[in-house]
């Protein structure tokens, strides 16, 4: 039998038998070389309670070349692209070793969620958010977990629960509602305000440092 197929089959079977790691693998399109992996968000992190799905493509030269993985579930994390789900992790690139398996790689992803590396970011804006105000970042990450990964939602259930689980663009971007309203009141479209404020990292201590003129200037750019 083809060595690659044998190995992947064995890996899938191993994963099925292993009840302790909570990692699951399933076939996509009935091909053993295109899989969907999933794992629970690690405890004591903003991702706790979420269920994260990963798209897995097994290249022809597997296991001698690394698998291709990206998040299907949207994740708010410095090393994961908030737009595409692309992952920045050394073992998926040059630090890959043939003895690594799908299971061990998914576990590595899980631990990546525990320990972000903001100095080697995939998503610069998220990384900026992480380094400037960790608290606000955690809130957004928790919010994303709640909305996209089916997490339990923020612990302080006073204001944001009013609108239920409806998607709140402002909270997703990790911004203050008052700030967005302020510029929306001037007459700029809401999503553009969110976009600019997020790009400028208008959060926490930065709010005092970025002048309003600067923001309006950015907003006026086509």
């Amino acid at each position, binding site marked *: 039998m083809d060595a690659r197929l044998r190995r992947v089959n*064995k890996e899938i079977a191993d994963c099925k038998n292993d009840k302790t790691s909570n990692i699951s693998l399933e076939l996509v399109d009935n091909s053993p070389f295109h899989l969907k992996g999933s794992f629970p968000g690690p405890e004591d992190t903003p991702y706790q309670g979420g269920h994260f799905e990963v798209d897995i493509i097994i290249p022809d030269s597997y296991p001698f070349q690394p698998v291709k993985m990206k998040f299907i579930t949207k994740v708010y994390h410095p090393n994961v692209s908030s737009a595409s789900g692309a992952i920045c992790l050394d073992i998926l690139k040059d630090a890959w*070793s*043939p003895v690594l398996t799908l299971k061990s790689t998914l576990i590595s992803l899980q631990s990546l969620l525990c320990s972000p590396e903001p100095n080697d970011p995939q998503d610069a804006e998220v990384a900026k958010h992480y380094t400037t105000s960790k608290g606000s970042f955690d809130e957004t990450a928790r919010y994303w977990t709640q909305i996209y990964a089916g997490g339990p939602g923020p612990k302080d259930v006073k204001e944001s629960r009013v609108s239920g689980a409806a998607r709140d663009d402002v909270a997703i971007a990790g911004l203050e509602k008052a700030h967005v309203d302020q510029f929306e009141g001037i007459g700029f479209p809401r999503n553009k305000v969110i976009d600019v404020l997020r790009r400028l990292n208008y959060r926490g201590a930065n709010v005092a440092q970025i002048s309003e003129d600067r923001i309006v200037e950015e907003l006026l750019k086509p």
Partner: protein
Amino acid sequence: MDDDDMEMDDYNDDFKLNTGPKRKSYEVDYSSLSQTSVEKSMREDVDHICGILGVESPVAALLLRHQAWNKERLIEKYMETPTTVLVESGATVPEPVAAPTPVRSHSVDKSTASPSSSRRATRSSSKLLSSLTSPTRLSFQKSNSISPSGTASPSKSRKDTKSEEPESFVCPICFDDSPDLKQLALDCGHVACSGCWNAYTTSKIRDEAEHSIRCMTEGCALVASDDFVRNILSDAAPAGTDVHENAVAWSRFQELLVRNFVAANQKLKFCPYPGCTNTVSCPSAAGKSVITSIVPTVSCGARGIPGSSSDKAGSSSSGVLQAREHVFCFGCTIESDHRPVVCAVAKLWLQKCEDDSETANWIKSNTKECSQCQSTIEKNGGCNHMTCKKCKYEFCWVCMGPWSEHGTAWYSCNRYDEKGSIDARDAQSRSRASLERYLHYYNRWANHEQSAKLSVELYAKTEKKMEDMQITSELTWIEVQFMKKAVEEVEKCRMTLKWTYAMAYYLARGNEKDLFEDNQRDLEKAVEDLSELLESPIETENIPTLRQKVTDKTVYVQKRNEIVLEDTATGFQDGRWRWNITVDGFEDPLEDSKVD
């Protein structure tokens, strides 16, 4: 160059040139090395290190590669902290060995159980590996890698440890458990089946062009020795693998090693032509500082490109073109031969051409400048009464003079020499001067480049003429070669001419530049004359005179070309040339020579 001299001998009756063995000032000393000879000098370095550090040659090779072939630094570091250096280079396992990553397979579990003190330093085990080249040793290899006592000492491991092996070995990579699997491992003892090793090694070499084949286990930094790689690609390769593919991978591996060696040595450069594995050694052009005073044009001596339908013998003229010599510049990758101008200036010029030439041409042909504020204006319709958008100056598009002077002659301009319009045109031409200056050089440069490209056709045409000549006159094959020689010479000179324009553009004004341009003009005139002769139709009765003329002209052109190259080369060596802009490695230009 040597090769030219040899060719020259063939036509000695036509060309009497003083091409003595003495190197010309525009040439550099270099030698071409084949892959084998580079391998030889690699081996010498390795032996040298073996002798000094007392390590086996596979280890010495790994150490040298890790230290970028810097022997002094390696020896120094090794003397200080031999273990660190060995571990860093991937030659040995780190001393306080943590048990290899726990893996599923039983066999490995067992090997983990072996005391960590039994992990051997390099020497003896690499001996093991090198002795593995014979297929009969494979069982011995097995024992080396798996049995608990295997790595303890070579003599001990020699005994058949088959019985000690676990019932069934499962390769941790491919999960194959068939009983006839060959098991292999580096000194670290991370076992995998030979099929996986083979696939891994081939993939590393072929897909990643990687010469450093690390152990497959995560976090293990041990690097396979050359002997291990050869073994896995030949004798130890599993039965199913393609013999040819293994051979290709092995030769690619050897090439990668050579490339690694060459890249680490400033005096060496790998031939950039596709499929060529030669190396050129040019000690006089090593280092960045030297290439401001010389243009190190070298050749690896090979011709043609393997795989293309080239006639190696080069007897037909189309063959000459395809089987062109592998000429390249040792200092840069811009163009194979950019003599006489040095790399830095050639690069500046090419950048400028890329950025400017098309835009500049368009501006030149489609716009004029407002005579008051110098804004560039494009007229895209309407009458000739222009009003500058910027400064509101009203002028006539045709004569460029102020509109107020046109009086009643609205919408038509038949004036030419009124004072106002002359002044306006003067201002216009001054502002155009720098653009014009650039285009002057660019157009000539591009023209020569174009002509050089057309030489393919010229070769074909000349070939035809040479055949005709042999039929219509009594001239033999050897006697009509003067045509081919002339075409080659023209092409060569056009290359020189092309780059003289790049050089002239950046040369600071003064006597030196005047002299340079005189030489350039003489060469250009000679080349154009010769080109014309070559293009002229052949009439039977004229052939002897034509032959005489072409031969004379060729010699003359050659002379002129040499004068240009010689003069510029000595100029660089004496530091005679001054630029009108700042060039890396040269003095800053004098204030009055700057050109906007």
